[in-house]
C-alpha cells in the first residue's frame, strides 16, 4: 500500500543514483587494482594486464590502494551517509580519485589528495562528536588523525615503515570504536573503556615510535595489536551474538575469526621488528584476516546503507569467509615452510574476495526475487 511519508526520501534521485554508480566504479577499481598489484608481488599476473603500465603502479602502491583508496573511501562513504551532509562526500571523492592518480603513476597528486580526504574526514568526525560526544565518537575522530598522519608521511615521500603503522592504526581504531559502542550493550567491567584507551594509546605511540625507531616502535605496535585482540575477545558482544542465528551469528563468526588473526598479526609485527621473517604474516593477518573478515561481516548491513543494494542473507555467505580464512592459513602457515604455497595462498585470498563479491551479487538478486514475490502476493 502506497503511503505518504514525512521523512524526506533521497534514495531514488537521479543525482544520487549517478553518484552511487560513480563511487561503486571507483571503489571497485581500487579494490581490483589493489588485488592485482598484490598478486604481481608474487609473480602472479592477472589475465590481460601483463603489458599494462597501471599494473606496475598497482604493484608499487598496493597498500595505498587497499587501505586508503579502497577501505578509506568505503569508510568515508559510511561516515558521510551517517552525518547526512553532502559536503562530507568530498572525503571519499578525494580518496577515490587518489586511487586513479596512483594507477596513473601520479603518486604526488595522489598523496596530497589523500591528505585532503583525511582533512575533510576529520571535519566530518568533528561533526559526529558535536552531535554525540561519547568515547566511541571521540575514538573515531582520533582514527581520522591517524589517517591524516599516515597520509602526510606518504605525501612527503616516506616509506612503508613510517606510513603503514599509521594507516593500519586508522583502520584498527575505526573498528575498535565501533566495537566499543557495541560493548555498551553487554555487562562489562567499568575499566573496560579505559583499558581500550590504554591499548589504543600504545597503538598510536608504536606508530609514532616506528618512524624514529622501527625496532622498538614495531615491538610496541605489535604488543598493542595483541592486547587489542585480547580486549576484543574479552569484551565484544560477538561472544553473545554468536549464539544467535542468521546474519547476527554470521557477523559474530566474522568478528571472532578476525580477532584471532589480529592476535597473530600482533605477534608477527613484533617478530618482524626484531628481524624475524614474518612481514607477510604481520601485514596480511592484519589486513586480510582481521580487517577483510570484519568487512565481510559488515557488508550485508553496510551495503544497503551506502550503496542502496538490499541483500537476502543466507548460508552462502559462509563460503567466501571460510575460503578467506583457510587460504590465509595456507599462505601464512604452510607458506612459511614452502614458499610456492605463499603465491598459491595469495591467489586463493584474491579468489575468496572475488567469490565474496559474487555472493553479494547473488544475495542482491535473491532479495529482488523475494521482493517481487512479496509484491505480487500483496497485489493478488
Amino acid at each position, binding site marked *: 500500500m502506497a503511503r505518504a*511519508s514525512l521523512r524526506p526520501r533521497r534514495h531514488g534521485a537521479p543525482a544520487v543514483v549517478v553518484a552511487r554508480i560513480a563511487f561503486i566504479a571507483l571503489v571497485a577499481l581500487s579494490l581490483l587494482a589493489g588485488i592485482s598489484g598484490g598478486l604481481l608481488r608474487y609473480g602472479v599476473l592477472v589475465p590481460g594486464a601483463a603489458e599494462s603500465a597501471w599494473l606496475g603502479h598497482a604493484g608499487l602502491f598496493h597498500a595505498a590502494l587497499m587501505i586508503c583508496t579502497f577501505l578509506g573511501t568505503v569508510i568515508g562513504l559510511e561516515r558521510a551517509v*551517517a*552525518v547526512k551532509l553532502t559536503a562530507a562526500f568530498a572525503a571519499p571523492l578525494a580518496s577515490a580519485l587518489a586511487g586513479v592518480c596512483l594507477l596513473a603513476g601520479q603518486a604526488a597528486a595522489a598523496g596530497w589528495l589523500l591528505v585532503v580526504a583525511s582533512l575533510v574526514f576529520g571535519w566530518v568526525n568533528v561533526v559526529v562528536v558535536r552531535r554525540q560526544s561519547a568515547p566511541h565518537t571521540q575514538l573515531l575522530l582520533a582514527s581520522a588523525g591517524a589517517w591524516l598522519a599516515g597520509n602526510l608521511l606518504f605525501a612527503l615521500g616516506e616509506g612503508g615503515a613510517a606510513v603503514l603503522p599509521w594507516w593500519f592504526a586508522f583502520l584498527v581504531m575505526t573498528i575498535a570504536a565501533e566495537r566499543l559502542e557495541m560493548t555498551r550493550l*553487554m555487562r562489562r567491567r567499568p575499566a573496560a573503556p579505559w583499558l581500550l584507551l590504554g591499548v589504543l594509546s600504545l597503538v598510536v605511540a608504536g606508530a609514532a615510535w616506528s618512524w624514529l625507531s622501527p625496532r622498538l616502535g614495531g615491538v610496541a605496535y605489535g604488543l598493542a595489536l595483541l592486547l587489542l585482540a585480547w580486549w576484543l575477545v574479552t569484551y565484544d558482544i560477538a561472544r553473545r551474538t554468536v549464539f544467535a542465528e542468521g546474519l547476527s551469528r554470521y557477523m559474530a563468526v566474522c568478528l571472532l575469526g578476525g580477532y584471532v588473526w589480529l592476535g597473530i598479526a600482533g605477534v608477527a609485527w613484533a617478530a618482524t621488528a626484531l628481524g624475524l621473517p614474518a612481514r607477510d604474516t604481520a601485514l596480511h593477518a592484519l589486513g586480510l584476516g582481521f580487517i577483510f573478515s570484519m568487512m565481510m561481516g559488515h557488508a550485508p548491513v553496510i551495503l544497503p*546503507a551506502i550503496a542502496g543494494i538490499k541483500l537476502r542473507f543466507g548460508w552462502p555467505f559462509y563460503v567466501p569467509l571460510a575460503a578467506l580464512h583457510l587460504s590465509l592459513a595456507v599462505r601464512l602457515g604452510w607458506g612459511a615452510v614452502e614458499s610456492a604455497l605463499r603465491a598459491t595462498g595469495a591467489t586463493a585470498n584474491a579468489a575468496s574476495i572475488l567469490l565474496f563479491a559474487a555472493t553479494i551479487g547473488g544475495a542482491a538478486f535473491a532479495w529482488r526475487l523475494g521482493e517481487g514475490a512479496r509484491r505480487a502476493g500483496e497485489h493478488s
Partner: protein
Amino acid sequence: MKTLDDFASQEGPEQEAYPYEGPDELRGPILQALTRVVDPEVAMSIVDVGLIYGVAVGDDKVHVKVTMTSAACPVTDVILDDMERELDKVAPPHMVVQLELVWDPPWTMDRMSGRARRFMGW
C-alpha cells in the same frame, strides 16, 4: 541456537516498552510491527534495544520517536526504511507514517528490555 524469546522473563509480562498514545486497537499491532525491525549487529529488535522513545497515533498519522545508539551509525536509514515498511502493514490506509529521529536524551543501556539485558549477560 538461542533467540531473545529464550530470555523471556519468568516473572510475568515486562513493563511497557515505550510511551504510547492512541487507540488501544493499534497498540499491539504497532508494537509487533516495530518488534519485527531487527538490528542484526546486536541480534535484537529495535524495541528490545530501547531505540523507540514513543509512539503517538493521531487522526491521520502514526508518529514515532526513535533514536540510534550512535551518531556515526550509517545504518540509520535502513532501520528507518524497515520501520516504515513494517508500520505501513499495520496502520490504517489513510494514516501517514511519520518517523522522528531524536538524539536527546541520548540512548543508554538502561533503555534495554529485560530479556535483552539477560541475553547480553546483565
